[in-house]
């Protein structure tokens, strides 16, 4: 359907006006219903989100595709022009959308919205929906376009070619740092979810042999039979959930499988190292398949169950004391900038720019398909985040805060100062009943976001007509689903980190750059595991709840990478002679620079020890110096001082490198726009497409 046909097609206009109207009604309901006894149904969140996605995809992404980029199907993509049947393979757009979504869909959008629900459901929901339309999806689409026009070059290479070699080098180093942070924070979420949970640990450990059997099935027994192996794997996962239940209640096995957080930290590090050095088909590939299909299936199931159950939102729209005064016990700091940092992946994620400039641009068969894959894929990811917000917002707020803080229940119920004087009704009996219902010893202080999401999902799924009231089974199914997903990021992420270290190391000593030379594989795997493992250990042993600090650093780092990607894209648009449209990428870039720099500066220098790393380090140091610390706690307190100074140093380093790239970009824009420098675009020359003239669609029938 072309723009012209829509313009003259009244039926289309009526349909789109209805969709926009439904979306507006959704927003009006979730934002406008207030007052005593007023309740908002969670279905309105889904309506607002889906209608906005539809309108944005149909109109905004189309406008970007035609006016801003001028996508041209008569121009061969790298997949068609090079078509070496190896890296460059023209691929059907739906298949490629599946590949791309599998690559960008991680656990980030599941956890971030749960933590941000502290501010109330409204700020996070608005950021997820508006952020993806104007920032996240735009970034993924524009980077895919820029990379495809440059034979699939990586973001770092594009920054080097289009901004300056210096910017490219900085981008390479910062990506490695961000990778270590991401791995640490996600591993911390798993550790928080599985610590002292024999059911969860048993189920997750059982996924290892299941994945290995799947790997052997696909690689040795029945080469390429992914569907069969996946059906087997999914069935075995469900069995694993029931085996976990049996082990947890077993008098001998139950206590044996109850592991402490620090034990889990070392198990995770060993797992990451082993997965990085093993052949990919043993663990990585089957896990990747399993987790992707599980994610699509579970989120779809959750959406259907939510619509069928139509639960009411229990979290207030805005918790004013947390939003404006920064007194929140889950995420320290005010709504601006921290809601935009806490929810990274569901709204905008810099890491997607690495995927969009990785394998996807080498496989896209027509330029117009980049809109579906780049923009559409990110809208799907945003919907995952929206469903996580629904799960958190439909929980009792008292239960939410009991799970996500380490505060005594009476303080939460009474609205003590540590709760920012906001009271949320919760009783010990209520928490005991809930813990018994999900088969856990306790749910109090189960921070990190994953257990909260699992309880929220279990409540919706178990109470819907699909769920059969099996709360404990659904809870552990949700925990397994989250942990499986995060472990996939840990194993593939460690491997990708290993490649990055090898790439960088190869510049200094050539043999280190050989990706299959085993001494290099072992050394670089150990190095990347040590990098994220240290941060993980640090976060686990932080008495102030390590996830608070690490998640903030991860959000800041991820959004800063997005700012770098958008700065590169803006430079390219200006060089293309499209300066009048540069706001499409410059506007979200400016927003990300403002929010990330504000958050970083606050996290480092804020005088309140709950927010500022240095303030907490100094306060703890003063406490030690005054002799108020018990001898038993001394070592732990000294670690707190060191860790917070270390976090401050990482934050400063991130601000410094990103500021350098942004300043360098703005300097380039000034030189280009003022005519002091001639634009030289490092784009590949146009090659006419044979597919377009033949009317063929690569990669299979439609």
């Amino acid at each position, binding site marked *: 359907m072309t723009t012209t046909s829509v313009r003259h097609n009244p039926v289309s206009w009526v349909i789109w006006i209805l969709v926009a109207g439904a979306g507006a009604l959704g927003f009006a309901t979730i934002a406008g219903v207030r007052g005593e006894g007023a309740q908002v149904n969670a279905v309105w969140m889904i309506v607002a989100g889906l209608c906005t996605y539809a309108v944005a995809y149909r109109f905004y992404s189309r406008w970007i595709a035609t006016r801003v980029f001028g996508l041209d199907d008569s121009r061969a993509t790298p997949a068609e022009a090079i078509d070496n*049947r*190896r*890296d460059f*393979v023209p691929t*059907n757009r*739906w*298949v490629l959308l*599946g*590949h791309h979504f599998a*690559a*960008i*869909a*991680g*656990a*980030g959008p599941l956890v971030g919205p749960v933590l941000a629900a502290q501010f109330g459901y409204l700020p996070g929901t608005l950021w997820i929906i508006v952020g993806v339309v104007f920032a996240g999806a735009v970034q993924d689409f524009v980077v895919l376009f820029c990379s495809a026009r440059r034979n699939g070059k*990586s973001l770092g290479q594009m920054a080097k070619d289009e901004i300056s070699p210096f910017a490219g080098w900085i981008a390479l180093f910062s990506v490695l740092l961000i990778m270590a942070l*991401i791995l640490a924070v*996600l591993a911390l979420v798993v550790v928080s979810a599985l610590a002292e949970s024999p059911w969860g640990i048993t189920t997750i450990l059982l996924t290892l042999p299941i994945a290995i059997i799947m790997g052997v099935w*696909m*690689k040795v027994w029945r*080469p*390429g*039979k*992914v*569907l069969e192996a*996946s059906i087997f794997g999914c069935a075995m996962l469900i069995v694993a959930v029931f085996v976990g239940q049996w082990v947890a209640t077993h008098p001998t096995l139950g206590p044996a499988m109850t592991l402490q957080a620090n034990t889990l930290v070392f198990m995770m590090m060993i797992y990451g190292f082993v997965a990085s050095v093993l052949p*990919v*088909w043993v663990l*990585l*590939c089957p896990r*990747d*398949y399993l987790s992707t299909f599980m994610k699509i299936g579970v989120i779809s199931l959750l959406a259907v169950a939510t619509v069928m159950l139509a639960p009411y939102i229990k979290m207030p729209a805005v918790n004013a004391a947390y939003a404006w005064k920064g007194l929140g016990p889950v995420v320290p700091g005010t709504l601006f900038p921290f809601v935009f940092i806490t929810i*990274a*992946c569901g709204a905008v*994620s810099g*890491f*997607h720019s*690495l*995927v969009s400039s*990785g*394998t996807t641009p080498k496989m896209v068969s027509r330029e117009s398909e980049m809109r579906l894959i780049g923009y559409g894929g990110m809208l799907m990811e945003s919907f995952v985040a929206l469903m996580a917000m629904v799960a958190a917002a439909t929980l009792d707020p008292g239960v939410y805060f009991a799970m996500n803080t380490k505060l005594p229940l009476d303080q939460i119920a009474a609205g003590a100062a540590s709760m920012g004087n906001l009271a949320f009704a919760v009783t010990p009996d209520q928490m005991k009943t809930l813990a018994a219902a999900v088969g856990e010893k306790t749910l109090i202080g189960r921070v990190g976001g994953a257990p909260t999401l699992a309880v929220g999902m279990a409540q919706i799924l178990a109470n819907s007509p699909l769920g059969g009231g099996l709360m404990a089974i659904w809870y552990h199914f949700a925990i397994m689903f989250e942990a499986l997903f995060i472990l*996939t*990021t840990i194993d*593939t*992420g460690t*491997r*990708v980190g290993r*490649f990055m270290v090898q790439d960088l190391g190869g510049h200094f000593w050539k043999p280190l750059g050989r*990706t299959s030379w085993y001494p290099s594989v072992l050394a670089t795997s150990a190095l990347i595991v040590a990098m994220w493992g240290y941060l993980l250990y640090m976060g686990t042993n932080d008495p102030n709840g390590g996830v608070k600090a690490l998640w903030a650093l*991860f959000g800041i780092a*991820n959004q800063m990478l997005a700012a770098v990607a958008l700065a590169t894209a803006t430079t390219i648009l200006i060089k293309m002679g499209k300066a009048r449209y540069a706001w499409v990428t410059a506007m979200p870039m400016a927003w990300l620079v403002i929010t990330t720099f504000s958050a970083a500066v606050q996290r480092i220098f804020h005088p309140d020890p709950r927010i500022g790393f240095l303030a907490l380090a100094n306060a703890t140091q003063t406490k030690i110096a005054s002799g108020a610390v018990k001898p038993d706690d001394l070592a732990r307190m000294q670690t707190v001082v060191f860790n917070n100074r270390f976090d401050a140093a990482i934050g400063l380093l991130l601000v410094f490198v990103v500021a350098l790239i942004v300043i360098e970009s703005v300097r380039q824009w000034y030189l280009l726009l003022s005519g002091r420098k001639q634009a030289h675009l490092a784009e590949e020359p146009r090659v006419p497409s044979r597919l377009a003239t033949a009317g063929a669609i690569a*990669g*299979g029938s439609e």
Partner: protein
Amino acid sequence: MRRNEPVAGVKWLLHWTREFFGENDYPRYVAEWQARHSIRSAEPGHRLLTAREFFNERLRIRYGGGVNRCC
């Protein structure tokens, strides 16, 4: 005609499920390869890959380097 509709629907669903899992890739590759070359006249280095080799090649593309998994 009406009796055939569910069958067509199931076939369509099966096709796309297999497509999504990448199981149609190898038959498609074989068909394309055969259309371009004769199996008998295959030159060294241009031989038809076995299903196992083809699967390995796909693994290499997806996991052989670069960023293939986000957060």
